């Protein structure tokens, strides 16, 4: 059931995971899905419109919200979007995007980079 977590959310007032702004974006999605159903092009347009107003960093929050709300279609959509956004970017960009830090030893990372040097070709600049 798509809305069992939403129901819990509304019941549970002490809620830090999902801010109001996010909720307003995520929750109307299933309605829209039902209206448009299997019409892929219209969904794509709708999704692109949604994303225009959302910063890339906001996407991670959206994903967390969708994950918390157990909302599979939205999760799939947001993950796909993130994947498309980061797929051709550099390692540093990805670290910044996800707020990660490199925990490699100084020589280890270089070794890894050199091993598959071809995968660093044609990467977008930051």
């Amino acid at each position, binding site marked *: 059931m798509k809305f069992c977590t939403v129901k819990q959310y509304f019941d549970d007032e002490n809620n830090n995971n999902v801010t109001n702004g996010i909720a307003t974006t995520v929750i109307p999605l299933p309605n829209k899905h039902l209206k448009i159903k299997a019409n892929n092009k219209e969904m794509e347009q709708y999704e692109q419109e949604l994303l225009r107003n959302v910063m890339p*960093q906001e996407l*991670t*929050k959206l*994903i*967390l919200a969708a*994950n918390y709300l157990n909302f599979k279609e939205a*999760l*799939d959509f947001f*993950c*796909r979007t*993130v*994947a*498309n956004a*980061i*797929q*051709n970017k*550099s*390692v540093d960009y*990805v*670290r*910044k*995007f*996800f*707020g*990660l*830090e*490199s*925990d*490699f030893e100084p020589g280890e*990372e270089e070794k*890894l*980079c*050199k*091993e*598959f*040097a*071809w*995968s*660093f070709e044609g*990467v977008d600049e930051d």
Partner: protein
Amino acid sequence: MSDYLPEEVVLEILHRLPVKSLIRFRCVSKSWNSLITTPAFINSHLTRSHSLLSNSNKLIVRHCLDKPYVEHYKLIDDSNDSFDQIQNIELPLTSRRIQHFRLIGSANGLFSLFEQERFILWNPSIRKFITLPKPCITVKAHGRLTCRPAFGFDPRTNDYKVVRIAFPTEEAKPPLIEAYSLNEDSWKLTSASFPPGIGFSCWHKPAASLGGAVHFAVYDKDNCSRPLVLSFDLGDEVFRLMSLPNCAFSGSNVQTSVIGGSLSLLFYDDRFVANKCCAIWMMKEYGVVDSWTKLLTVDLNKEIIRVLCLQKNGNILVEVNLPSDWELSSYDPKSQHVKSLGICGRPYYFHVDNYVENLVLLDKPNDAVSKRGACRKRKCRLTSDKEVCQLQEAKHLLQEILQHASVYELQLDIIHQQQTIIHQQETILLPLQEAILHDKRALQLQEALLYELETILQQQTEKIATLISQIEIMETAESKLVFLIQRLKGQAEVETMLQQKTKKMTSLKSQLEKMDTIKSKLVSLIQQFKGQVGEMSSGVGDQSSAPVQQRSQQRSSSAGQEM
């Protein structure tokens, strides 16, 4: 950003990334590196890869070029008729025997190659290969063998397997069978029994891998060489035979393949030299003999020599023998038109398969590549990286020098002086360089002149050569003339001799004639005398006859003596 995404969410994102990005993002952090290289992720990424739209229309083409002996793997988009090449990947390994590796087979975008007893698994998606450990069945241990290898994927265990069926050269012995499992990274002899009286129709073409079994085209030795399909299940390691419908003719060259997800057979019929063709049969329902249907026949009488794969638009990818080269081409069965795709290579070494991006082999330890085998491009990149590091180190050193300015002031002054000297030398050098340039130009002019002289010399030597040859001809003519003159002289001598002889002959003849006339005169005289004597004896009487007879006898005898 203080929100940390839970691991399951990160995995969701990673599953949707292409292989190139995943390889690169191993460098993001240790946790990402371990996530990407777990076998579970590799397997689930592959299964999801199959369903991605971007992956459903790609073909991978293996073609081998000679000199350098490099194998190329080209990724091609099959979704439209234009046949765009997406990528070209080279195998970063060369065969030790100055040849190409032989292909055992391919499955899920993973290739298996071998030469003699060295087996390799190669994944062009991540450009990584591993060398398999030595097999159990070797020439050292079992004597000379003829081996039929095969490569397949078992979806039940997500395992890739290499199978070897080795026949000892003494025919009476049954074959030994072993299989290598990628999950276990080891070869194992199997106890499977090879069905007796079965022979392989083809020893080198890849065996089709479908549904966790590898399929070989075989024939029944005891039953008029009837063609059959022999399958070896990679899971339970059992051989099974499948019959073919009776109307399928027996060709000596039969190959198994997978077309449109079904087991197929390519029958190469070259019984009639003028009418060679290849018939493609498909088993629409696996295991049901009656479901074998003939798809179409490809005419092999013109340029086409081999059928490789079926395209999405119904065309067939074929190997074509052109006057200049062998090429991969697209054959339209309706119009019978062959369109070249511009991919050349060694004949019978082309291979086409459906391509799916995958990470298989990523978690395996790296092969120790011999220096000879390492990709040259990678070497160059490594040396340029080294240079970059060295430059960065030099930068750090300079900064340290600046910090210690008071101690190194003198050295800086010396450096400045040296710099001015260098500047002066440079100013001196400039005219020298110009002079060098002038000299170079002069040299070039001289070279041009020399070249002209050389050409003139050449012409003259050619003329001399012709003259010499003419002289030779004349000399031979002269000697012939001399010879002829001598012969003529000889002939003249002979003629004079003959003349002398004829003169002698004529003189002798005249002498003889004279003698004949004398003889005749004498004879006439004798007759006269005889007549006179007769008259005298008869007229005068017998008294004077006796002395007259004696005188006549004396006269005739003296005339005879005078003669």
